[in-house]
C-alpha cells in the first residue's frame, strides 16, 4: 500500500518537475512546480511527518508560489524563445561524465551493504507538531532565533529592493507650504541619485527650477 502511494506520488513529482523544466511559459512552470510541492507534501505524510507536510503546503505551495505567480503576472513575462545550443563540442564529455556518475550511483545502491540496523518504519511521535515544537524551543532555540533575524533582514531587504526609488532622502524635511524637490529631479546629468531636497516656496519658482514652461499662458489679473 505504502509502496503504491510512493510510486504514485513519486511519479507525480517527477512528471511535474520535468514538465516544469520543459515548459517555455513561466506561468505553466509555476503551476507544475506547485504540483511537485503537493506531491512532496503527500510523500511527507507517508513518511509520518504531518507537520512538515502541512507547512510544505502552506508555505511553499501557498506563500512562496503565490509570490512567484504574482511577480510573473506583474512583469507580464513572455515565452522563452528557442536558442541554438552553445558549446556543442562538450556534449560527448558531458554524456561520459553523466554515465560515470550514474554507474557510481548504481554501484552504491546495489553493491554496498545496507546498514542492517536500519529501524523499521513504525509509529512514533517524531514528526508530530508537539515534538517539533519541543525540539524547536529547547535544543534548537539558537537556530530558531537566528532564523527570525534572517526573516527580518529579508523583509527589510525586499522592501529596499522593490520600492520605487524614493524621491527624497530619509533626512529630508518637508517645510509646510513649501514645494520640495530632490536635486536629481532638477538636474539628472549632474546629480545622479542625489536626493538632497531643494526647497521652493511658490509654483512659479518650482516651474523655473524644473525647466517647465506654462503651456496655457493665461495672464493673471
Amino acid at each position, binding site marked *: 500500500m*505504502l*509502496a503504491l502511494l*510512493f510510486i504514485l506520488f*513519486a511519479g507525480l*513529482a*517527477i512528471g511535474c*518537475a520535468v514538465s*516544469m*523544466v520543459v515548459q517555455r511559459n*513561466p506561468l505553466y*512552470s*509555476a503551476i507544475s*512546480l506547485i504540483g*511537485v510541492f503537493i506531491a*512532496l507534501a503527500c*510523500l*511527507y505524510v507517508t*513518511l*509520518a*511527518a504531518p*507537520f512538515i507536510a502541512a*507547512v*510544505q503546503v502552506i*508555505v*511553499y505551495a501557498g*506563500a*512562496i508560489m503565490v*509570490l*512567484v505567480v504574482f*511577480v*510573473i503576472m*506583474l*512583469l507580464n*513575462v513572455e515565452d522563452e524563445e528557442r*536558442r541554438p545550443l552553445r558549446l556543442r563540442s562538450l556534449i560527448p564529455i558531458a554524456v561520459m561524465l553523466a554515465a560515470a556518475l550514474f554507474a557510481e*550511483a548504481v554501484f552504491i*545502491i546495489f553493491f554496498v551493504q*545496507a546498514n542492517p540496523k*536500519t*529501524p523499521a*518504519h513504525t509509529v512514533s511521535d*517524531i*514528526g508530530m507538531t508537539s*515534538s*517539533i515544537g519541543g*525540539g*524547536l524551543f529547547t535544543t*534548537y532555540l539558537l*537556530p*530558531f532565533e537566528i*532564523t527570525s533575524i*534572517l*526573516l527580518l*533582514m*529579508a523583509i527589510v*531587504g*525586499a*522592501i529596499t*529592493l*522593490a520600492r520605487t526609488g524614493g524621491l527624497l532622502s530619509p533626512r529630508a524635511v518637508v517645510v509646510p507650504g513649501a514645494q520640495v524637490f530632490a536635486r536629481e529631479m532638477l538636474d539628472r546629468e549632474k546629480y545622479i541619485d542625489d536626493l538632497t531636497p531643494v526647497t521652493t516656496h511658490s509654483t512659479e519658482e518650482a516651474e523655473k527650477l524644473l525647466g517647465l514652461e506654462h503651456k496655457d499662458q493665461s495672464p493673471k489679473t
Partner: protein
Amino acid sequence: MVPQLSWYLALSAVLFTIGVVGVMIKRNVISMFMCIELMLNAVNLTFVAFSSFFRDLSGQLFVFIVMTVAAAEAAVGLGIIIAVFRNRESLDVDDASSLKL
C-alpha cells in the same frame, strides 16, 4: 512491500538533478528561481526521509529552517528580479551581464 530509504533518496536525487538541469538550460530569471526552489525541496525530502527512518527529530527541524530560508530567499530574490526588470526591461539572464569580464 514497504518503501525503503533508498527509494526516497533516489527520488530526491532525480528531483535535484532536474532542478540543476533547469538552472542550466533556462534563460528566464524566474524559471531559474523556480528550479532552485525545486532543488531545495529535493534536499528537504532527503532530510525528512532520514529523519523518519532513523527516528531523529533533527532532520525535520532542519527542513523547517530550510523552508524559512527559502521564504526569505523568495522575498529578496523576487525583489531583485523586479529591480532588474525595472532597469533593463527584460528577464533574460543574458541581458544582465554587466558584471561579466
